[in-house]
């Protein structure tokens, strides 16, 4: 009985130590950034750097709090989120539409692909002056620019994804008496999905980048507006707050895409087993 108790306790011990080591492995990743923050704060406290140009972490935190309680932060954040959300949504829809059309039909490829391949070589940010002349200085040019930028990665990856679906699998499926539509739905589109999601990740990145540029060129709301306003009043701490917000938003959307990937591509060997947290801890510890 004693030996049974011992052997029963052991796996538990191991589980705990695994969790601890997993936690330490996590903690390690934050050591260096934390150290930098401390040194930065110390340098500032001893007036070794000009806090007008380089505000201390504490000053940034205070200004963050100020912006939060006055409601400025949330209002501008909301304005930016709306722009990115709409722009990205339209871009993804257009990119998907063109990608399906060009990927699934010869006619689509002949008409759409060559045109888009030509337009693609033009950096979309170069269109800002034109868009302002066309659409004025309201929301339209910003959303249009984000949509345009986000469309291409989706289009290119979906098109390539559809065309690179394994011919042999399509052939095998076509021996199962499936209709054309059923083959597209069951074989071609799922086969193109991984590549589509790669495109989506690029699109999200481009959407944020476009937002930053568009809001700095001209806007009276949004995180970019907050930052440009702060520049005029030499409020470097507010600029820092803006940068941090951008970074957090980028991280958050990237994480969202990764969650989508994990769900949609659950059949991939690299994702199989990652759904349960126990497995994840074990793998990381291994």
């Amino acid at each position, binding site marked *: 009985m004693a030996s049974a108790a011992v052997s029963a306790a052991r796996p538990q011990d191991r589980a705990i130590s695994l969790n601890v080591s997993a936690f330490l492995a996590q903690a390690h990743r934050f050591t260096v950034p934390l150290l930098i923050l401390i040194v930065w704060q110390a340098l500032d406290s001893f007036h070794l750097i000009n806090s007008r140009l380089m505000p201390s972490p504490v000053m940034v935190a205070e200004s963050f709090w100020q912006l939060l309680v006055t409601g400025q932060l949330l209002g501008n954040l909301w304005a930016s989120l709306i722009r990115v959300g709409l722009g990205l949504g339209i871009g993804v829809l257009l990119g998907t539409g063109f990608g399906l059309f060009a990927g699934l039909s010869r006619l689509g490829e002949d008409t759409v692909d060559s045109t888009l391949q030509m337009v693609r070589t033009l950096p979309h940010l170069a269109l800002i002056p034109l868009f302002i002349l066309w659409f004025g200085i309201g929301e339209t040019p910003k959303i249009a620019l984000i949509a345009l930028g986000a469309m291409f990665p989706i289009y290119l990856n979906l098109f390539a994804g559809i065309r690179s679906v394994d011919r042999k699998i399509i052939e095998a499926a076509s021996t*199962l008496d499936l209709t054309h539509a059923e083959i597209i739905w069951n074989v071609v589109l799922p086969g193109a999905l991984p590549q589509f999601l790669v495109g989506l990740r690029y699109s999200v990145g481009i959407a944020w980048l476009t937002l930053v540029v568009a809001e700095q060129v001209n806007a009276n709301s949004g995180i970019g507006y907050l930052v440009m306003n702060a520049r005029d009043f030499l409020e470097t701490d507010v600029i820092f707050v803006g940068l941090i917000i951008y970074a957090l938003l980028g991280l958050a959307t990237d994480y969202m895409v990764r969650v989508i990937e994990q769900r949609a591509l659950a059949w991939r060997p690299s994702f199989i087993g990652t759904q349960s947290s126990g497995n994840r801890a074990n793998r990381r510890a291994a």
Partner: protein
Amino acid sequence: MMTAIETRAPILDEARLTRGEAAVSVRGLTRSFGGPAILTDLDLELEAGSFTVLLGRSGSGKSTLLRTLAGLDPAPAGTVSVPKERAVVFQEPRLLPWKRVWRNVALGLRQGDTRAQASAALAELGLSHRLDAWPLTLSGGEAQRVALARALVRRPKLMLLDEPFAALDALTRMRMQALVAQLWQQHDLTVLLVTHDVDEALLLGDRAVVLIDGQIGADIPINLDRPRRHGDPDFIRLRQQLLATLGVDETTG
């Protein structure tokens, strides 16, 4: 995508598909890929319920013939009649990795409880425990059995097998051969099996046809009792005959 050969090739009446009648009939089939013809004026008939093995050197056109019968390759010249109820198993399992095993098997089924039908077919191949697995987690032998189940579940009259065991290890291959022999005996099936393996041909087939210069160059009945044994003198005699037809000089016998 799928080129229907039905338009070109009349489908035989189901009622005629009784043992002894032709399930498959190919007349004057010619196929080339731009260059010289791979199949030239080829004739072949398969009796309903027969198990025919198709042999031939690499590149002789075995897969091309099989793909024509499967409706995957148009027959530009000649007539091809095949039952509409046909299924193909290739050298690779060719499963859809994004569909669970049973959904792969059930794909294309339209009537009744498709999950029940799929799981019955999978059970017959000893895969009841893998119903909900992702294909990429299967072993090679398991995946190939899923492919067989996917073919069987459609209750085909004609089963076309293109080197289905070539990629398996020796032990798994032996099991699969026994399995196919068993399935053929239990279901009302006409089988055409492409293989490079003379022993496999003699273990399974009751007729061996050899593709030579684009035609059926040799047609050898295999009248051996089942289950078959490698050591049987008749087996050894037929083996040498087949190897000689294939142009392999086996002096070590």
